[in-house]
């Protein structure tokens, strides 16, 4: 019987939502494949993660705590993981399909000569192989892919699965981490958090409210931020808004920005050019607010509101606040 591992994405023990989503997917797959399920904690701050892991049904947790894993980019974690894989021969490894998870997956795959799939939005089992679905060409096509040999390394996109609780007993196994000097080549000098007020990051958020050129100036992004905050959403932006200097590039959605598929995407004053759609058209529910009834974004929208954003958005924010309060 093989093992299916979830490599936890966390910030010093604060588990990202995608970790719980992956554990839910892993549990289902473990059943289908007849595998045991385990989670892998790399880095520091395990104690903060412990309780949550139990609630989402971790059976075994391999804890590889090390300051070096946080202090140097990628390589210390890859060394530790490679050693664990060689010792325990898991059949499946799930990583979060975010920059850090993909870096680890790619480096590990290259090191072990294993196959890696990224940006996976659905997984099922066919015999002993995983069948993974992903969107390519900016969401214009769906493909399914398999990995030919074991271990199968899969990067799971945030929000692809809905996390479900399944309380279970956690069995911890401490892993000795010894990091070679060779692995300490990319030193983290500092980490800078820029996101105001605990607003989620675009790549992980379940809801995104994005603003475009229709906002007419940087000061009006406030309207988008206020709407985002009532919904607990991240703030996105079109390239036109980013290139005009109204909002930082890190928030850009689209072909030359982030590819996202949140539960809900609200486009405010965005026309819906193909390069923008390429980054968001796989969102589960899409809402568009635009004064031009012919804007292409409406072609994707589950709900389109033709109107002046300067009237509609503040009124919507107030309305939602009222309903949440009552």
């Amino acid at each position: 019987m093989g093992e299916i591992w979830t490599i936890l994405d966390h910030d010093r023990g604060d588990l990202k939502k995608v970790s719980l989503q992956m554990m839910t997917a892993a549990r289902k797959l473990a059943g289908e494949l007849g595998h045991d399920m385990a989670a892998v904690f790399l880095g520091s701050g395990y104690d903060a993660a412990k309780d949550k892991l139990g609630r989402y049904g971790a059976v075994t947790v391999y804890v590889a705590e090390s300051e070096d894993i946080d202090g140097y980019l990628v390589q210390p974690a890859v060394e530790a993981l490679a050693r664990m894989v060689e010792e325990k021969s898991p059949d499946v490894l799930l990583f979060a399909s975010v920059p850090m998870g993909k870096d680890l997956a790619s480096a590990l795959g290259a090191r072990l000569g294993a196959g890696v799939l990224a940006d996976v939005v659905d997984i099922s089992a066919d015999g002993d192989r995983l069948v993974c679905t992903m969107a390519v060409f900016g969401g214009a096509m769906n493909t399914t892919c398999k990995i030919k040999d074991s271990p199968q390394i899969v990067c799971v996109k945030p929000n692809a699965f809905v996390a479900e609780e399944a309380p279970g007993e956690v069995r911890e196994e401490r892993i000795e981490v010894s990091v070679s000097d060779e692995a300490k080549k990319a030193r983290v000098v500092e980490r800078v958090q820029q996101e105001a007020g605990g607003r989620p990051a675009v790549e992980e958020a379940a809801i995104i409210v994005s603003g475009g050129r229709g906002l007419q100036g940087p000061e009006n992004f406030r309207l988008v931020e206020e709407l985002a905050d009532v919904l607990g959403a991240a703030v996105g932006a079109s390239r036109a808004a980013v290139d005009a200097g109204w909002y930082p590039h890190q928030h850009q959605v689209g072909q030359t920005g982030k590819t996202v598929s949140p539960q809900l995407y609200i486009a405010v004053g965005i026309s819906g050019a193909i390069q923008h759609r390429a980054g968001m058209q796989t969102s589960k529910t899409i809402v568009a607010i635009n004064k031009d009834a012919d804007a292409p974004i409406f072609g994707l929208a589950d709900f389109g509101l033709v109107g002046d954003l300067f009237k509609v958005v503040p009124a919507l924010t107030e309305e939602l606040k009222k309903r949440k309060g009552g």
Partner: protein
Amino acid sequence: MNIVVCVKRVPDTAAEKKLDPNDFTLDRDSVESIMNPVDEYGVEEALKLKEAHGGEVTILTMGPEGADKNAVRKAIALGADKGVLVTDDRLHGSDALATAYVLALALAQVEFDLCILGSESTDARTSLVPQGLGQLMGMTALTDVKQLEVKDDSITVQREEEGGYAVIEAKLPAIVSVVKGINEPRYATLKGIMGAKQKEVQVLSGDDLGIDPAMVGLEGSKTEVTEATPRPPKEQGELVKDEGEGHVKLADFLQQNKFI
């Protein structure tokens, strides 16, 4: 300081894509191709570093015959010194890590201090190549770089991370992948475009690089595509014209769908 920029030729975003029904690879003849848009920022960063530190900029691509046209040539027109195209029928269908394997062998033949890639390609968007390349070459790979500074033999970058960034320090030679925010690419001049036609693009085969055929192509890749289908067109939902009550209807919609 010598720099290699890896660029990929990808189908134009606006073009309709066709896949080969047998092996699900892209029918590249059927669509207009462009340089992977993010790679333009890699080229620009290399040209800026060359202006500041001297040295040569080499453009490397792997792809079918003629893959240099809209990618390598364009970079040369912008100011890069030379180009290398790795092409071989046996490479057809290589996945991201098989591509990294080929690029690693090609890079082993060039003396460089820095290798720059784009953070991801628009067609497959895996972002797996840069880190895979670092691993295979035993070199530090710094991904998603939004600012970069080189001093003597060290490099300091700002790396985009969720909700912020990290400052990372490493030694050269190194590999970096860049994001769009890093710079403002220049436009080619007519003189540059004319000049690029004179320059030679070196063409290398799998044998020139000593490639193990068992590591590349559809057969050698560790992953396989088993099905590809166009995404079904989305049905347009409700369209409401605001006549003063639009926000209430939208709030109803959001509430019905349990977003509040």
